[in-house]
């Protein structure tokens, strides 16, 4: 099993550009999450989903959007990139409440 796959691994964006961070899982997990990790900081929840068609905001949703049309895919959209969105983004999935998360390997995004 591939687990959680994130693409791209690295990306440089110019201020104001848009992009979509892709996340796919092959474990049939209902729960999926997007986190950002800034240097020396913990993981901050951006958006999460408890199943296809259901999404909700986390701690730091501003500047981001998500969709969940299938169980497998949970893309994260940045509409107008800002330097404050320079970070490492992790997608994760789980089988349900109180089960460990499986994380992807991350996307390192730089906005210049």
């Amino acid at each position, binding site marked *: 099993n591939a687990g959680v796959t994130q693409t791209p691994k690295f990306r440089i964006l110019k201020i104001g550009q848009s992009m979509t961070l892709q996340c796919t899982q092959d474990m049939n997990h209902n729960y999926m999450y997007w986190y950002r990790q800034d240097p020396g900081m913990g993981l901050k929840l951006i958006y999460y989903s408890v199943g296809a068609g259901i999404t909700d905001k986390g701690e730091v949703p501003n500047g981001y959007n998500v969709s969940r049309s299938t169980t497998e895919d949970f893309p994260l959209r940045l509409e107008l990139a800002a330097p404050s969105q320079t970070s490492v983004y*992790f997608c994760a999935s789980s089988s349900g409440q109180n089960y460990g998360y499986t994380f992807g390997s991350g996307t390192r995004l730089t906005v210049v």
Partner: protein
Amino acid sequence: QQQVKQSPQSLIVQKGGISIINCAYENTAFDYFPWYQQFPGKGPALLIAIRPDVSEKKEGRFTISFNKSAKQFSLHIMDSQPGDSATYFCAATGETSGSRLTFGEGTQLTVNP
């Protein structure tokens, strides 16, 4: 109410020593406490987890100690090895949090040979 506070921020230990990382939480509804290990350039990976019905859980060299009354839990790494050098995150969740984990700020562990 949702915070998880982790300390220390960084830790340097000699090979063979004991590494201890502490976390404290506020939300008494939390009932699942995992620890994650993250190597540079990788995503966090589940290391070990505990539920509050036990005070200790051991898996190999890794032990979680849990103190429900103090609302604290800690990770002990016995016989620390250079390969244990990584960032460690504690986390917590419970019924009021749905499926969402609240993470501590992380501890960067360095084990010197």
